[in-house]
């Protein structure tokens, strides 16, 4: 079980290696990628700001909850911090379990909890030169700058 904040490109292949277990029959992974749009706005880059210490503590707690709740063989996740471009992987989640029901449910649980509980904020830089911190409720910039 490991959760990390990384300022370098994520490596899903290497991350998935942690999930191997001879008793595991199912592996589900999720990746969040930087999209070229948010609603009607054209996005050219994103910046993620994290409070690393609290994010790691909370991330590890979420993974432990998932392992317990879904009886997993392994779970891991990593979140980017820093500046990302279109197509970059912002977050990776992976789990292994005996059967696929648990794998899908656990992977979904982890990404949902990470997105709502981690102290990580996203600033979008638009093609028109503006930028803004994204608000979790509306999905819109809180105050375009």
């Amino acid at each position, binding site marked *: 079980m490991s959760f990390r904040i990384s300022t370098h490109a994520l490596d899903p292949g290497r991350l998935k290696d942690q999930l191997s277990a001879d008793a595991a029959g199912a592996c589900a992974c999720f990746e969040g990628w930087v999209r070229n749009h948010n609603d009607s706005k054209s996005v050219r880059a994103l910046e993620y*700001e994290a*409070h690393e*210490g*609290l994010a790691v503590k*909370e991330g590890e707690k979420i993974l432990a909850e998932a392992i317990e709740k879904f009886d997993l063989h392994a779970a891991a996740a990593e979140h980017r911090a820093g500046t990302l471009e279109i197509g970059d992987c912002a977050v990776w989640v992976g789990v292994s379990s005996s059967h696929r029901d648990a794998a899908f449910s656990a992977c979904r649980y982890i990404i949902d909890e990470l*997105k*709502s*509980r*981690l*102290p*990580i*904020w*996203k*600033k979008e830089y638009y093609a028109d030169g503006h930028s803004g*911190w*994204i*608000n*979790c*409720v509306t*999905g819109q910039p*809180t*105050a375009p*700058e």
Partner: protein
Amino acid sequence: MIAVTARYFAAFRDKAGQDTETVRTKAKTAGELYAEIAAAHGFADTMTRCKVAVNDEFADWNTRLADGDTVLFFPPVAGG
């Protein structure tokens, strides 16, 4: 009166124009301190949507503050 260190993240830091300040306050709890600071810096988010940490541990808004505490104010996360 106590003196605490307030730290701001993301949109809060941009609005406050600084990431750290020392605040002398009569606030007894993290929530009372947020109310003061939100008024001073124009933070519009309600407490239920934000999070707070005291001395690097997540805390609830009723947490009592002591002189010398560091209080971290987290705006809503992106969640998307």
